[in-house]
């Protein structure tokens, strides 16, 4: 396909660019457009095949059914079926709980870490590298390591708790389903460790743009440390804070890998760590024989609508920023 993009360009572009007087206006315009579309064709085809078409197809498939190789319209059948599936509600409850936990842990921690790092005059480079290092690890490496730490019998975490004379935990294998479950908190801790570097560095950059005079003025007015954070730092980084809020929600709601690797398939005990994307995967690929692409698509459409809401909010905010 690389050849295609290059070849299409050849005939039209040279005369159009070099000799503005040659040829009729229309012909020139046509050639110029052909050349430009030649540059576009590779990316447009990839978008068409792997983004635009699947998006439409997911919506269509969610209203279809396939029995014995024959596809027909099914109306709302797929939606009704997953509505009556208790796992569907469990997965949404889990995903919402993950999102709330990730907001409490994964969203607040990087902000305070950034504030702390911004005050330090030494070891800045070192600390920055430290915080971002886990982001670069292959997720399987990081998560299998955490699964090892979380092991209830020979894991490091329970050993540390025992040494400190604290009660031990089953971590990701905790059976409970009462909110917040220990299993989920364990997943969110691992996820935060892996992912907090990006948000921390973005906050740090935002903090460095706050004019020092604002802190000066606040201090002269007698504002203490916490009030300076609340009345200067937070309002000055409000836009970045709200953008990352949207991004964090979107990222957490499509969580798959963490639960999948830590609880071997994403189910946990009694499905207590199963996320919506884990369930899409189960609907479509895991239940061998009964695999049903159509109910997976219906679930996909619902998640797509929810996520579009938040990513729309993010894009709207980022336009304001530019």
């Amino acid at each position: 396909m690389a050849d295609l993009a290059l070849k299409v360009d050849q005939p039209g572009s040279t005369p159009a660019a070099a000799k503005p007087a040659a040829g009729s206006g229309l012909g020139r315009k046509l050639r110029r457009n052909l050349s430009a579309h030649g540059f576009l064709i590779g990316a447009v085809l990839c978008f068409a095949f792997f983004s635009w078409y699947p998006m439409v197809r997911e919506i269509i498939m969610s209203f279809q059914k396939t029995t014995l190789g024959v596809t027909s319209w099914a109306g709302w059948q797929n939606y009704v079926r997953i509505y009556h599936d208790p796992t569907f509600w469990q997965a949404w409850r889990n995903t919402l709980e993950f999102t709330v936990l990730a907001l409490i842990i994964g969203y607040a921690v990087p902000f305070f870490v950034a504030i702390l790092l911004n005050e330090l005059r030494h070891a800045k480079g070192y600390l920055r590298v430290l915080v971002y290092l886990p982001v670069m690890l292959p997720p399987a490496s990081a998560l299998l390591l955490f699964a090892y730490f979380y092991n209830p019998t020979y894991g490091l975490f329970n050993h540390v708790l025992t040494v400190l004379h604290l009660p031990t935990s089953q971590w990701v294998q905790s059976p409970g389903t009462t909110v917040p479950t220990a299993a989920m908190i364990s997943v969110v801790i691992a996820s935060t460790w892996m992912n907090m570097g990006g948000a921390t560095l973005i906050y740090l950059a935002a903090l460095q743009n706050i004019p020092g005079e604002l802190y000066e003025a606040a201090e002269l007015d007698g504002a203490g440390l916490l009030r300076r954070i609340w009345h200067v730092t937070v309002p000055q980084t409000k836009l970045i804070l709200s953008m990352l809020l949207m991004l964090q929600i979107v990222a957490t709601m499509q969580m798959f890998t963490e639960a999948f690797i830590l609880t071997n398939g994403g189910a946990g005990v009694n499905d207590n760590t199963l996320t919506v994307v884990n369930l899409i995967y189960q609907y479509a690929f895991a239940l061998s024989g009964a695999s049903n692409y159509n109910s997976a698509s219906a679930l996909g459409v619902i998640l797509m609508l929810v996520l579009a809401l938040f990513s729309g909010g993010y894009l709207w905010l980022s336009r304001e920023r530019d």
Partner: protein
Amino acid sequence: MAATQTRTLISAAQLNRKRGKLVYRIVLTLVVVVFTLVFIGPLYFLFSDGLKSTQEAIATPPTLVPQHLHPATYSQAWSRVGVGRLLVNTLYYAFGALVLQLIFDVAAAYALSKLRPVLGGTILAMMLATLMIPATVLVVPQYLTVADLPILHLNLIGSPAAIWLPSVANAFNIFLLKRFFDSIPRELLEAAAIDGASALTTLRRVVVPISRPILGVVSIFGLVAVWKDFLWPLLVEDGYSPSRETLNVGIFQAVSTTPQNMIIAASAIAAVPTIAFFLIFQRNIMSGLTAGGLKG
């Protein structure tokens, strides 16, 4: 940045007082120690637990330092999990995806920014609209599409193209590149055109050389995205012999049949290239992250 320290939460005057200095010293030491423990600590275990024997790795209580060094665990993990093969696969997927992204996304962003063809605005809007729909939501129709490409009726499952081609449909690349190209002055391109350069020559000789910084950002994100992806390679490259899996998928699939110490050793080997890559390019990666906009 250390040279011109701007005023932050706490004033320099306050820090220079005797008490301020003491408190600062304590906080600094605490932060350095705690952060080292939290972020390097797990990495220490990642590398040292791979040196344990199978029995020691699952001993209760766990040992903090391997009692008997078993470097053989690494070589066993290498052959048993097939880490070498997985590493080559992942590199092949990552760099292939990068090359295609650089060719097609740069060309497209250039056309949308400078050549401005008919319907260019619509195409750009449709590309950017995909930012609203994260790829994970579309796995099912995407998988079915890759298994039977419309019109062409090609099955890409198990081929590198199943990872390469979808990676080109990256609206974030288009957005970043177009925004950068927009800032290139028109006169520069017109001068090239007067010298008789075609659009392609202008792109290669003028635009690409001055776009190095943004191409660096796009390349780093492109490589890291393939390196870190899990769900998609699990769907499209799984279950072939010899293996076509990526590191992430291959090691995960080995968990049920491989002793714990070898899994950790394999995970450690898998982490080495990215850690090295990060330490070499840390400046570019971290400045790219903040300059290139916000991407999770």
